[in-house]
């Protein structure tokens, strides 16, 4: 049975308990030994998911340019979302990993085997969500869905720590049914909510979200693709170029060879003709 996360962004309060729990359980050190500069434009001082941040709470502040419009802060919105690896059903990172370091576990999660990864970074460039990153140790890192905890019947640390149940862990099918119900409730209240991560996105995301704005507002791609989506076409066009390289090369070498053969034949013909002419003259 596939396990995963259902993240309801409408009840996230941005407390970052998930980030702290993730760091603590997985023993992830702070970036730059904790000497971080504040971004200065938000409560978000993590910035992005990285090798040292497997959970990242995004703060999306939506205010009109004139904050007094329609009364103080009326029509304003503050969206918060705890981002994490999506554990895609069709995972681009797993697809491209040339060493076999990235595997699918018995919980249907996507896991990087640290003893196999050689730090080629193919997975980093393949993940459309900007999840995978290389750490100071040269290897690729991302959320493991707390594989070690799952093997002992525990839920991931972030889900356990979440005080509002914005992050829920469980069987993906059950979570999805719950999310659909939640979306229906929100829509009944006039909130334009939807589930991001159904089958139309990379075969389904085992870690999916309830969102209330367009995906790109949350920094999520509208239509993420498999990294290899255009590879066949790329190879086909390269084959055409290879044919062009071969034809031009052969033409250049053959043409001169033919010219040379023609020239030598003309030369030989002229030489054969010479004594005959002389003979006829003498005759």
């Amino acid at each position, binding site marked *: 049975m596939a396990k995963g996360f259902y993240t309801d962004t409408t009840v996230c309060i941005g407390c970052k308990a998930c980030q702290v729990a993730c760091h603590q359980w997985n023993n992830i050190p702070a970036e730059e030994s904790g000497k971080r500069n504040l971004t200065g434009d938000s409560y978000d001082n993590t910035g992005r998911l*990285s090798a040292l941040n497997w959970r990242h709470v995004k703060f999306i502040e939506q205010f009109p340019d004139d904050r007094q419009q329609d009364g103080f802060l009326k029509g304003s919105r503050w969206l918060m979302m705890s981002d994490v690896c999506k554990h895609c059903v069709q995972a*681009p990172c797993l*697809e*491209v*990993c*040339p*060493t*076999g*370091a990235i595997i699918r576990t018995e919980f249907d999660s996507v896991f990087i085997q640290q003893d*196999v*990864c*050689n*730090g*080629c*970074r*193919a997975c*980093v*460039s*393949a*993940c*459309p*969500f*900007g*999840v*995978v*990153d*290389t750490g100071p*140790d*040269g*290897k*690729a890192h991302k959320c493991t869905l707390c594989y070690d905890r799952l093997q002992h019947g525990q839920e991931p640390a972030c889900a356990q720590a979440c005080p509002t149940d914005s992050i829920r862990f469980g069987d993906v099918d059950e979570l999805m049914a719950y999310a659909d119900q939640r979306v229906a409730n929100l829509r009944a209240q006039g909130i334009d909510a939807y589930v991001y991560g159904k089958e139309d996105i990379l075969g389904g995301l085992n870690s999916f979200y309830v969102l209330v704005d367009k995906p790109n507002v949350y*920094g999520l*791609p509208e239509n*993420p*693709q498999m*990294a*290899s*989506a*255009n*590879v066949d*076409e*790329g*190879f086909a*066009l*390269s084959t055409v*170029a*290879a044919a*062009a*390289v*071969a034809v*031009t*090369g*052969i*033409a*250049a*070498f053959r*043409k*001169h*060879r033919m010219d*040379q053969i023609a020239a030598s034949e003309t030369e030989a013909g002229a030489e054969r003709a010479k004594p005959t002419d002389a003979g006829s003259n003498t005759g």
Partner: protein
Amino acid sequence: MPNAPHWGWYIILYFFIGGLAAGLYFIGTLANLGGDPRDRPVTRFCYLAAFPLVLACGFLLTVDLGKPLRFWHMLIQSERIPLPMLKYWAPMSLGSWVLAIFAIFSGVAFIGALVDSGRLTNDRALRLVAWGRARSRALKLAWWLVGCFCALFFGGYTGVLLVGTNVPLWHNAQLLGAVFLLSAASTAYALLILVLKRRGGRESIVSLRKLEAADRWIIVLELLAIVIMLVTLGRFARPLVTGGFGVLFWIGVIGVGLLFPLLLPHLRLAALTRRPALGATCVLAGGLLLRFVVIMAPQWPNIALWKL
């Protein structure tokens, strides 16, 4: 949007040197099979240069890894030794295998060229070369064809490797493999022209004419491929064609690296005729710059421009 993979100068140089090695091996084989006896120095130089360049490629790829000592994980399943590790749908996996196989082909050609040039007189090597040359014509032709296939694949797969990512500029540039392959051929021709012009001598004039004719055609095709690629890329081309990288791309790659060498024979400037290898030098510099801007543009500013 993916995080920057931090592919820096090791990868830029690998792409450039790999292209040169592929192009040289292919041209060397073409001159060997289709050329006349006066092309033998071309073949010899190609084979003498290609193999060391392939070795340099292996070195660059290895030192670029986060864990260089695990380079063999690309070819062997580290948990099931000695089962091979191959994902034929993943360009990086396929490329690792082709690099390894191409090293064998270029290595054999290298030994043959060493023996021909009298640099290698070891009995075992002489026997090996004699054994190889005593094979049937069909077998030798098959060997050269497979070698050329590996060379052409190796010259173009680097571009397809970038297509096989989710970085928008790379992912949507389906022609990148074709552009890199054409660039591999043009830079290899340029290197040969440069070497032959430096050597001088009447013997090389015939070969030079052939190489220059082929290089002109390839440059025209490369320009055409780049234009089509930019048109099909549309807004995704922005990191490449605007800003500082745009200046390098338009002036360095297109202007100096492709248009100038193409127009050079028609420019009647005294200062230019004193530098006979100027066009070839520009093609080589343009080829390196092409790889620099294509690799760096979508990663910047998340990567330092001097990042190895």
